[in-house]
């Protein structure tokens, strides 16, 4: 599903490379933790997968396609197959829960009838059926992250990329979010999650890829944080 071959990336004006050498192969339906200290290149790797950044060298395949060869007008199609969630949720404060979720369907031109049926369905999947008319600032952090998961998943993407989704949440709330991601993974969606959270990694026992200074230093099945 995701194949990264000899990828390197250095940001302009930066002395050190964010990624020195990355080779990763992730199959369909896998659940992978990306661990490593802050600045080790986790977010950079995730952004390369959605073409928010371009690698300096190497090749990246998503769903069998070399995204380096992809023309720019096809990038939206790539992104429709990849759900993204973040530490800071990236919700639109002026829209309600339902509107935030619907937005993801509207901007890819889905029919109103499709939106009307999909939005309540996905909101109840993430456990927010009673809060659909609330605004993000009326919700707890965990609830906001559920909204962002709903928005990322409403398109039924092949891949879900999560960049420290529990970084702002307390341990109890984080468990709820991890259960949700696990359920999403069970539907066949490939999940890649960058995290700092030792407790989560150690309890879930999924594949762990560790980054250090832009290099992959460990790739372990049913791994732990360290």
């Amino acid at each position, binding site marked *: 599903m995701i194949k990264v071959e000899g990828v390197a990336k250095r940001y302009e004006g930066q002395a050190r490379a964010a990624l020195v050498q990355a080779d990763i192969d992730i199959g369909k339906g896998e659940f992978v933790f990306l661990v490593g200290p802050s600045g080790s290149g986790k977010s950079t790797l995730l952004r390369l997968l*959605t073409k*928010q950044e371009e690698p300096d060298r190497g090749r990246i395949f998503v769903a069998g396609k070399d995204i380096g060869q992809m023309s720019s007008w096809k990038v939206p199609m790539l*992104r429709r197959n990849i759900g993204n969630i973040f530490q800071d949720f990236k919700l*639109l404060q002026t829209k309600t829960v339902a509107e935030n979720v619907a937005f993801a369907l*509207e901007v890819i*031109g889905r*029919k*109103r009838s499709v939106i009307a049926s999909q939005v309540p369905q996905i909101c109840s999947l993430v456990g927010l059926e009673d809060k659909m008319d609330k605004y993000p600032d009326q919700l707890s952090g965990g609830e906001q992250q559920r909204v962002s998961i709903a928005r990322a998943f409403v398109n039924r993407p092949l891949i879900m990329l999560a960049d420290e989704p529990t970084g702002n949440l307390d341990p109890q709330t984080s468990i709820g979010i991890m259960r949700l991601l696990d359920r999403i993974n069970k539907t066949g969606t490939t999940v890649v999650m960058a995290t700092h959270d030792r407790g989560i990694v150690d309890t879930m026992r999924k594949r762990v890829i560790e980054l250090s200074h832009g290099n992959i230093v460990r790739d372990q099945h049913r791994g732990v944080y360290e």
Partner: protein
Amino acid sequence: MALRIDYLTKETTRNFLRNPALTIGNVLTVAISLTLLGIALTVFWGTANLKAEAESEVSFVVWLKTEDNGVVLTDPELEQITQDLRAKMEANPFIKDLNYVDRDKTLSEVQRYFKDAPEIIALISPDVVPTSFVVTPSKPDISIVNQVKDSLSGAPGIDRISVATDVIKEETRIASYISWISGGFAVVAAFAATLLMYNSIRTAVFARRKEIEVMRLVGATKWFVRIPFMFEGLLQGVLGAVASGVSIFLVNFFINEMFTSIPKFSTFILNFGQETLIVIAMLLIGSLLGASAAGVAVSKYLDA
């Protein structure tokens, strides 16, 4: 896949109402800068009207001989020459108007002209005062004037032809000067309008950069992101242009009030067709500027 009309109207209405201060600010900015542009165009066109009027006053004087080889012409002889010339000139299609000035009129004009110098008047003997035709050509055009002048130059009985080209040149030169200045001002005003609109729309886009980021992230195409902003810019441009159109009509109304009573300036007044053309131009410029300024402003956030 395609941009849906219901989505477009919903988003546009929402964005218009979400930040009314910004929306009103943008519309006012457009209105003010387009009004400046419209006023400049009004002055430009008004002076062009004045210039055309000045040129239409192009006429010249055909002086008739008072003697032939030192022999003073008799009245019947003069009468004959005058009639022949009049017939000749009336047949000329390039001559619009003929005005015969007889001795008495010429003399009284000379007396008026030299009223502070009686010694000069004393020198003039009434029977050598020449008669003349004031000729207005069909078109206020120097080349037509010269053509008419050339066609007459060989005719008997003509002493000389004096064309007030220098006076014409001076008047049209001043009118051109004013219209160039106001034209230049119009260009500057258009430039300022573009910058002001771009700047205020950029502020609006900046306020919504997060929304744009989310749209791109969930797979919206660039045009899908761009079009609602451009539509909003277009709408603001149109609203601003409508407001400026009203001001331009008002400005013209006041010019009308002020200038109708001043004979020299009454031709400055734009006719309704000219005013309407300026307002239509404002609408086109406003909508075009609004849409393209928004398009450019959004593109800045579409790189990723």
